[in-house]
């Protein structure tokens, strides 16, 4: 499964190239995640994503119980330019469930 890809992946950016026009997962700094269709990218990992779902995860401390409250805020954006320096991880869509 992975072996047929290995021949095409000679450097890490090839993994991104193979994901063009596919929906990808992007993990960004400050607990942000994006899922969207990769339209374009460059060597800095600047990216143009389409039909993007952004998930922002925040952790708050409850004033009374001091419990951590994890909140996920979602929003959708038709088109997004992502500056590369915020990118931590990029993953192509999962082919196996």
């Amino acid at each position, binding site marked *: 499964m*992975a072996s047929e*890809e*290995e021949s095409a*992946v*000679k*450097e*890490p*950016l*090839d*993994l*991104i190239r193979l994901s063009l026009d596919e929906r990808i*997962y992007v993990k960004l700094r400050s607990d942000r995640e994006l899922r969207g269709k990769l339209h374009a990218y460059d060597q800095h*990992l600047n990216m143009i994503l389409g039909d993007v779902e952004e998930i922002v995860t925040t952790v708050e401390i409850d004033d009374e119980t001091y419990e951590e409250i994890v909140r996920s805020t979602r929003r959708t954006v038709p088109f997004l330019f992502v500056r*590369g*320096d915020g*990118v*931590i*991880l*990029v*993953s*192509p869509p*999962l*082919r*196996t469930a």
Partner: protein
Amino acid sequence: MSGAGAVAGEKGSSTTKTPADFLKSIRGRPVVVKLNSGVDYRGILACLDGYMNIAMEQTEEYVNGQLKNKYGDAFIRGNNVLYISTSKRTLAEGA
């Protein structure tokens, strides 16, 4: 003094001379990649480049030692990398 440096260099893997040689030599091996944020990624190192951008397979994401996510393939942007370590531990067979 100069001799001591050479000995220290030979102590590691027999083929490794420079950090770049080490990185070349560990392609295809199971590795642990730690990021500056403290998050660990365990998986098979597919390849890497001069920026220390990393492509990994069968990647597992560990936050505070807990498995948080799995990725079939993962690209990690090099600037986030704290270290890359080879691991003998085989991947947990979750799938």
